[in-house]
């Protein structure tokens, strides 16, 4: 089928047999929940659709329903996600494998409905697995895989599947929609060890004293660490059944023998692959490392890559004011233990939906080739900002 990223999300949730969907509309997420409401009202999906009055309530309703043993799903974007922030923490603390789609969009002010990753990155400490997708197909597949990985006994944490606003959400691509029976064989019904139910007088999420609080946090940390292996094994199984894979925690594209590698996340990666191909054709040894899982962060995979290259150009589609791009600080921290460290430079680009063109990516890689030999003047550089020297076009 040819469909948008948003429909791919809706089909992903439907194929995963989400049982309770609580959602609130926000641009550009709306067509996900419209489609799901359609599936539910036509009977194609046996689920309860709760048209809640806010995103905070969407997540709170998902948390409650999931505690009662239902598989839940919601979708949101930017301000909706940040309004959910409190309850995102609740979901992970309560160890509920909820899956959501976040259509990643810039934060206001200034108002912008277009892509950047500020909303998603701002949730990095909430205890959620975070997957940045590159294609509509990956969105659909990742939702199904996320449920399976997250519902593992050893993980039991929620996951956020991130699709870039408009670039994926509203762009149609050919998407293979797998058979329901195949998905059912891959993803069994949600059956938690413990759920809230009548006859069991239990309090879920009660007050814990300082002498015991850290142990619960330690367990959540273990869940996230175990997710690394689980993401890989689930994807392996997925590939076996469906014949597709998307790169685990870190997708490496033409990184062997590369001098300089672009590190990026989201839809820009598909543009970057073309740029890498074009530069390789001219004999320039460049590659792309796509951060697919931002949480858990692929430290080891990046270290293995970093030990073999001269430079890493880290592209952030968001900015942590007073520091640098969040991906950059993580990547750089990963390199610290290496004997032979590559040069690492941060490129801030594509905020608020500004296009990141092939030409810009080529310029970034060319800059990084120079930086990896001579060092950088500025470790963090804002790319293509009007009023600054026009050297990125």
């Amino acid at each position, binding site marked *: 089928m040819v469909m948008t990223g948003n429909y791919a999300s809706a089909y992903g949730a439907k194929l995963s047999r989400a049982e309770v969907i609580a959602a609130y509309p926000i641009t550009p997420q709306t067509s996900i929940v419209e489609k799901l409401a359609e599936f539910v009202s036509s009977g194609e999906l046996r689920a309860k659709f709760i048209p809640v009055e806010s995103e905070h309530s969407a997540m709170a309703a998902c948390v409650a329903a999931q505690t009662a043993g239902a598989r839940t799903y919601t979708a949101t974007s930017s301000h909706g996600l940040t309004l959910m922030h409190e309850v995102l923490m609740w979901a992970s*603390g*309560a*160890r509920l494998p909820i899956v959501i789609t976040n259509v990643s969009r810039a934060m206001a002010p200034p108002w912008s409905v277009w892509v950047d990753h500020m909303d998603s990155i701002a949730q990095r400490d909430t205890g959620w697995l975070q997957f940045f997708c590159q294609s509509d197909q990956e969105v659909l597949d990742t939702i199904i895989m996320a449920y399976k990985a997250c519902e593992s006994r050893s993980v*039991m944490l929620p996951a956020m599947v991130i699709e870039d606003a408009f670039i994926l959400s509203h762009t149609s691509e050919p998407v293979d929609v797998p058979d329901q029976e195949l998905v059912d064989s891959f993803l069994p019904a949600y059956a938690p060890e*413990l759920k809230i139910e009548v006859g*069991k*007088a*239990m*309090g*879920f*999420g*009660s007050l*814990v004293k300082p*002498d*015991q609080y850290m*142990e*619960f946090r*330690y*367990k959540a940390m*273990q*869940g996230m660490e175990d997710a690394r292996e689980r993401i890989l094994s689930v994807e392996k199984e997925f590939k076996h059944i469906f014949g597709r894979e998307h790169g685990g925690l870190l997708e490496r594209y033409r990184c062997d023998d590369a001098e300089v590698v672009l590190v990026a996340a989201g839809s820009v990666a598909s543009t970057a692959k073309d740029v890498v191909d074009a530069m390789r054709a001219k004999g320039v040894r460049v590659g792309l490392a796509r951060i697919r899982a931002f949480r858990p962060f692929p430290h080891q995979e990046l270290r293995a890559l970093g030990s073999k290259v001269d430079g890493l150009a880290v592209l952030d589609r968001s900015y942590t004011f007073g520091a640098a791009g969040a991906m950059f600080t993580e990547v750089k921290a990963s390199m610290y233990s290496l004997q032979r460290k590559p040069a690492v430079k941060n490129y801030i680009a594509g905020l608020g939906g500004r296009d990141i063109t092939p030409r810009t990516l080529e310029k970034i890689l060319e800059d990084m080739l120079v930086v990896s030999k001579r060092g950088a003047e500025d470790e963090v550089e804002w790319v293509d900002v009007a009023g600054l020297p026009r050297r990125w076009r």
Partner: protein
Amino acid sequence: MTKGHKELPLTPVSDTPSTINLTGLWRVVRPVVDLSKCKKCTLCWKFCPDAAIELAEGEPHIDLQYCKGCGICSFECPAKCIVMVKEVGR
């Protein structure tokens, strides 16, 4: 006793009756019941916030392990058969 992380559930689920909390230790005044005056109206039982009064043949038996000494039973008793006395020597 602090439990090791391996002994804990994934998330804090409370399943132990609150009778582990001996709230009677909070008490500064204690109800003393003169059953000979009791009219078995059961008002004391009805108004006890802590469900710390049980009825036997309509007569109240206050569980001092849990009674916090609020004095509602004493105040509400129409027969005035419950008096609050100071806790001493605890």
